[in-house]
Each structure stands twice: as C-alpha cells, then as structure tokens.
C-alpha cells in the first residue's frame, strides 16, 4: 500500500483561523501504482484529507502510513522533509505558487530544498518538463509569460521535479479548456502507467477521470462514504447522489445500457468509443436467442 489510513480523524483546533472541514474515523488504503479519484461535495473534507498524505497536517486521532513512514496521533512525528519529497502535493491553481523569474529556477526550487546539487536539480527539471509535455525552450521563460495551460503544467512539473513516488493533485484541471484538460489527464495517466507512480486526484469533473481511474474514494461530511474500484462505483452510482454529487454522464449512460440488459460484473465502458463498441456488440447479439432468453428470464 502506498497510503493507509486507520481510524483517522482530524479536528482543527479552536485557535485555527481557517474554517475547514474536519475528518472523522477514516479508514482507507491506496495501492501503490494506482490512479485514485477522490470526489465529494464542497466542504466534504477533500482538501483536509490531501494534506494528511504528506504530513502537512498530522492526524489528531488514528494512524497515517505513507510509504514506510508512520504518523501516529499524539506521537512525535518523524522528520517529514524526506516524506514531502516522496509525496508531491499539488494544490489547487498551483501556478499561483510560482515566484522565480524563470521556469527553470522555479522547477529547481523543490529539488534544491531537498538538498540536491544544482546540476541534479536542473536535470530533474528537464525531465519534469518532458513528463508534462512542455517544450524545453520554455525553461528560460518567465513563468508569468506562459499561457494558462502551460503555466498549470509547469507548476505541476515543479512538483514532479522532486521525483515523488506519490503525486497528489487537487483539481488539476480546474478552469482549463476541455482540450487542455484531456491532455493533462492523459499526461497524469502516463506518470502512473509508464513510471509506476501513484496518482491521487481530487476532481469535480468525474467524467474526465472515470475512464482511467482504478479506484474511487467518495467523501461526505468528513467521512469516507464510498471506497472501491471504478467498477464497484459504476455498479451503483446512486451513492454519489447521496453525497451531493451529480452522477456523471458516462456513468448514467453506462448504467442505462447495463440495466437494460441486466448486466452484472461487466467491466464498465466509460468512454463514448468503448460504450458505442459495446452497444454494437450487444446489438449484433440482440437477435441472438441467448440474450433474448436472459432478457426475458429475469
């Protein structure tokens, strides 16, 4: 497991200035090398949960295990700097954290903080640019001169430059146009499938993540209301509605087809292409007596 939470609660202290949602008794596990989507209505505690993953917040109850580091409530935590390098946390609108005069310097900020040499940091920066599909010529540019989509990718690259094993992103595609969103999601998918990193994404737009996510965690009022594979979620998406989330179109269309033929245990087809091909295969079978029989039987 890349991340394991056991009976974790997080309560903000009274003195805290910032109004955020507390978490209650969360048990969850995130397998290494998987893509996990986290969904939840506004104020369900998504941001708080993410901050537990790299020790920015420490649990007030329970145990958080991240890679080989264990954070236990009430115990003195081990040195967290090393953990923060291994768990890259990308906040919402990450381009707002860029501050150096060139993209390269900004990308080197993380690696240098974690004690790498300048040479090594620059190498990491170049690699991160490639991973985010950005042209290396942009390294010399002022980050504030990039286009919106480029800035977002460069900011994510500034976290990737630390070479984290786990990458946690809070709504990475927010306010991007549809093409840039799809592009970013597929870049993130490659980080997982080709490089074996664990990718955790909080999203308001489940449709764009559903086709690639392995697992989902759905939060409601600081508790984990659902945890399981995309297939399990697709078999009963009504849990989303109970958590105040609109059911994504891909799930609605899939359910309509699956319910029509009372399909159970079928791998969900969540892209228009996959669904169309599946419908075609059903339609060619439809005259087939077996389907008819199954249809009438139940």
């Amino acid at each position: 497991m890349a991340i394991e939470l056991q009976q974790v609660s997080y309560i903000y202290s009274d003195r805290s200035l910032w109004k955020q949602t507390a978490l209650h008794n969360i048990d969850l596990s995130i397998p290494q090398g998987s893509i996990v989507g986290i969904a939840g209505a506004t104020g369900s505690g998504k941001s708080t949960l993410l901050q537990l993953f790299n020790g920015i917040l420490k649990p007030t109850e329970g145990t958080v295990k991240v890679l080989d580091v264990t954070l236990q409530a009430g115990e003195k935590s081990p040195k967290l700097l090393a953990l923060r390098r291994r768990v890259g946390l990308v906040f919402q609108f990450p381009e707002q954290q860029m501050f150096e005069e060139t993209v390269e310097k900004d990308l080197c900020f993380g690696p240098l903080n974690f004690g790498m040499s300048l040479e090594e940091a620059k190498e990491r920066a170049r690699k991160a640019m490639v991973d985010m599909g950005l042209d290396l010529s942009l390294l010399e540019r002022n980050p504030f001169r990039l286009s919106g989509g480029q800035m977002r990718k460069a900011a994510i690259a500034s976290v990737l430059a630390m070479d984290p094993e786990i990458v946690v992103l809070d709504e990475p595609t927010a306010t991007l146009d549809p093409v840039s969103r799809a592009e970013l999601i597929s870049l993130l998918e490659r980080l997982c499938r080709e490089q074996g990193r664990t990718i955790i994404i909080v999203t308001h737009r489940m449709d764009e993540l559903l086709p690639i996510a392995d697992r989902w965690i759905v939060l409601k009022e600081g508790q984990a209301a659902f945890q399981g594979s995309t297939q399990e979620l697709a078999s009963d998406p009504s849990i989303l509605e109970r958590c105040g989330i609109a059911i994504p179109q891909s799930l609605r269309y899939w359910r309509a087809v699956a319910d029509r033929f009372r399909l159970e245990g079928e791998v969900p087809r969540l892209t228009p292409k996959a669904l169309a091909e599946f419908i075609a295969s059903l339609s060619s079978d439809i005259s087939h007596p077996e389907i008819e029989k199954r249809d009438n039987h139940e």
Partner: protein
Amino acid sequence: MIETNRLQNLEASEQPAVITLSGVSFGYDPKQPIFQDISLTIAQGQWVSLVGANGCGKSTLVKLLNALLPKSDGEIVVCGLQLNEENIGSIRQNIGMVFQNPDNQFIGATVEEDILFGLEGLCLEPIEMGHRLQVYTDKLGIAHLLDKHPGELSGGQKQRVAIASILAMEPGIVIFDEASSMLDEGSRNELLDILQRMRAEGKYTILMITHDADEILASDRVLALYGGGLAADMTPAELFSNDDLLDKCNLRMPFSWQLARELQKVGINTDVPASEKELIEKLWP
C-alpha cells in the same frame, strides 16, 4: 434539435439589435492587435455563446462593450447608445456582468451589502431597494443567506449572489464571463437552470463566454473567435458538427454527441440522444 435552434434564431432576429459592433479592434500594443475588425449584431432576447481557445480575446471583447477596457478602433452601439465618454454610465446600467472568480466579485462584507452595492449606486429609494432585495434573493434562492460573509458560502452560492446582485440592477443584457468554470458539477447544473429560466422570462439578452459543451448546447447561437477575428457565427449544432472549428477553439462535443458519433462509426445510425433513457428507447424499442 438543429431545427428548433434555427427557429429560435429566426424569431430572435426579428427582435431589435441590442448590441452592434462594427470594425472593432483591440490591442494593448497597436502593432500587435489581439483581434481586429470584428463586426456583429446581437438581437434582443438572444442567448449567445462566445467561444474560442484561451487567450483568443473573448474576455477582452466583452469588456469593451461596457468600456471596462477601451477599444482601439471601431464603433460599438449598446441598446441604441453609441459607446462614448458620455454614455458609459447609461451603457453600464444596461449591461450586467458575472465574472469567473466567485470570491473576487464579492464586494460587500455580507450578501445583503453585496446586492445593495449596485442598487445604492443607482440611487434607488430604500423602499425600492428593499423590494428588489426580496424579489431577487427569492429568485436565486439565497434569501436565507442575507447576513452571511463570503467566507461562509460555497463557490456556487457566491456565484448566485453575484447573479442576484447583477439582476437586481435590472439590466437588459447579462454577460457571463466563464462564470461556471470554477464551480463543481452540481453548481454548474444549477447555473444552467438559472440561465434557462432567464431565457424563459424573455427580458434578458445573454452573452456567455464558455468552454462547457452543455452550456453551449443550451444557447441559441455561437460566436467563435479565432486568429484575431470572428471565425464563425452559427448554431451550437453546426459548431458540434464542425471538427475543424472545435479543434481551433479547443472544444469538445457533449458526451451524447460523441456517443452518437461513435455509434455511427460502428454502423448504428441514431440521432443525438437527449438523455440516456431516450438512447435506450431508440436503440431497443
């Protein structure tokens, strides 16, 4: 669907024009114009989507209409008023704008103060302000939030407040500048509902900058900006059938359109379904 949209267009075009642009250009640097020589007319009561890739100048273009930014060249007429120094005030009264970031357009320290900000500027009598406060907070479903601070509201609620603040000023034209892009799925659906109700009322001309396929589909007409000019003026259905234009504007088809397209590819010819239920009924009657 294409037919109904056309019909609405036809009806709308009989209405008087409320926005007319002729030969409008803009550039911070005159040598590098962001767009040039844009001419268009929008009729009263129309719901128009303005689309285009990021950085193509959509947001800049709508800001010229009420002189938030100064046009470099050309003529703009809004509600029969030529845009010039003297008319700015009256034109701004006719145009309401809802922006992208729910936080940054919340001017008052409470919901009530935010709505009053515009009304007090119109120099209305307190009785009239009280009346409008009630009408528009009821309409947007935020009457119970009057004394809330922005920090206590969700993004969707803040956008409703922004819309209430704008509508309470009773403008004829309402511009939405990517107003849904920072909202979650549920709030975006709610915003679409609000827009549909506004259209049904018939007193608003809506100009909406958006990337959202469902929002575009709901509108009557699409204007596409590309390469510093107006690349297309068509119905949403025409836009979604034009791959080249979708590419240029960084847009995607709505899910149902993509599905119909993919079904055609595998030899199942079906119209674009309005819902998943309709699809099932059509495929397997």
